């Protein structure tokens, strides 16, 4: 099981690393990096689903009968676009947070908000 499905274990490990980075870091950019690692792990999971034993890449060639399944690749193409869009929106918001607060540390930003409230 472990020997034949080792890709899933690697992917699972990557997912956990990503999630851990999202949760443990207060730095917004690092959170986004963690989010990307997590998403990419899921993309790789999808792509590995499409693998067929002894299959060649799904490009029609003479003399080859067994191809890998192309559909997951196409799906992930869409998911990658979604991932890029998420990252860019995230970075855009992070930049605006930096402009508004002068920091990309979540805790510092929250503290500055709390300080504002105290001043009012």
């Amino acid at each position, binding site marked *: 099981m472990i020997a034949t499905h080792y890709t899933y274990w690697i992917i699972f490990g990557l997912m956990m690393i990503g*999630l851990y980075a*999202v949760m443990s870091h207060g730095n*917004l950019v690092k*959170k*986004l990096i963690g*989010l990307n690692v*997590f*998403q990419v792990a*899921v993309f790789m*999971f*999808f792509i590995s*689903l499409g693998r067929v034993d002894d299959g060649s890449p799904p490009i029609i060639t003479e003399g080859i009968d067994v191809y890998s399944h192309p559909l*997951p690749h196409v*799906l992930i193409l*869409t*998911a990658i676009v*979604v991932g890029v*869009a*998420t990252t860019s*929106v*995230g970075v855009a*918001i*992070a930049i*605006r*947070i930096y402009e*508004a*607060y002068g920091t990309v540390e*979540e805790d510092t*930003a*929250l503290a500055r*908000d709390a300080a*504002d409230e105290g001043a*009012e």
Partner: protein
Amino acid sequence: MTSQLPALQVVVPLLGAAGCVLLRSAFGAWVLFSVVAVASLTTSVALTVQVWDGDVIRYEMGGWPAPAGIELLIDRANVAVLLLLGVIAVIAAGYGRHSIEVEVPTRRIRMFYAALCLLLTGLLGITVTGDAFNLFVFLEISSLSSYALIALGRRRRALLAAFQYLVIGTVGGTFLLIGVGLAYSVTGTLNMADLAERLPAVVGNRAVTGAVVFIFVGLGIKMALFPLHAWLPGAYSEAPSVVSIVLAAVGTKVAIYAFARFAFTVFGIDVVFTDLPIGEAILVVGSLAMLAGAAVACFQQDFKRLLAWSSIGQVGMIVTGVGLATASGVSAAYLHIINHAIIKGALFAAAGVLLLRLGSTSLDSMAGLGRRMPLTFGAVVIAGLGLIGVPPTAGFASKWALAAALVEDDQWLILAIMLASSLLAMVYVGRIVEVGWFRAPAKFDEQAAESGEQATAGANPGVLRVREQTSLLMAGSVALLTGVSVYFGVDASLPSNLADGAARILTGGGAP
């Protein structure tokens, strides 16, 4: 032409978004959004008429037959949500005319409407699609546009709220993707009808179990199901008023619909509710949500934040109906989806009016409001009574239906929790009433108003100026939603017809 309606439902708002970007003027973008909103409402009414007798419309996108192509699916389980989306879009268009002008910097208004069109596209798409992967894509379209819209809130805190929502929402969306992938790995199909056909053959496979759990948790994040609700209070309370209305009224509801669709028609009652303890899990977290949401709402100092926490409790109430997995439970859930959307829409619309008139939505600033703005405050109280579930408001009708469904299923403990949650609702609505009618108006001196304005100006200069008059369109939206919430309490035939039809399709049994 009518055969293309399912596609138009999604394509029109999508083109509208592009149009808003191309148009040069803010007014033009508003006109375009209004046209899109009215078109969506018209389309959903036409579709409702077509499927009213229980027909199912299957639309092959681009002429590619399912399961290879993407299929749009319209039946009585989703026209209720489509109608709701149409109505809220039209309200948002009318209400937004002045609200957005004041709350959003002029140069961003075009983009604001473009994002609003995309949000509508995403929400409508989730509702009409018959393809699991397509649902993920539409979910991300609606989420991404809502992050952008929340970030346009007037205070800088809106940016943090949007970012937190982005992180949690993306994890939720990706969980959904994992679930869809797992289901695909054992069935080899993404079409919902096809999945439903092939899944029984592989029941018991751990990948199916994993798929159900991942989809449930992923959508749980999107519907702000306790304890996955952390993003909601900040997002709802910091977003511009129009966005709050749309998100509070339909944002979470669409995720609940998507879950019901997956649970009942894709995986089937047997897999989700009999083999797996998802039903029990929903009842537990739903009950906790009812109590926690309502309890925390009692301690809020800000009107919009209070409403947001109340939404968490109400979402718990809706999913409890779904978790019962009986025809009457699902019907009650749908009824509450409709009624709560109208009531919360009315309350957030009123909050937007207060924001423009008072410059703030804190409860302190609402002191003595009953005398200064009796009509707006009257609407708040009527809609608030709906939240508690006082007859003859719409809230009573749906809580009654849910209570009946709970009794039918012998869930007395949950019934008690629901009543306790309604009592807590009485506390937080009571607080608003107390502040508005019995507390002396705060000394509303010019200086305080000015310093408050400067505080907000620090983050977003010159955005908010306190208005003397409520615009007619905004007041009209509040009045319309409040009026409908009372009307649905007196004559619940339309929403309960929609709800029963949906329950019949989803649970397969004869609804009451």
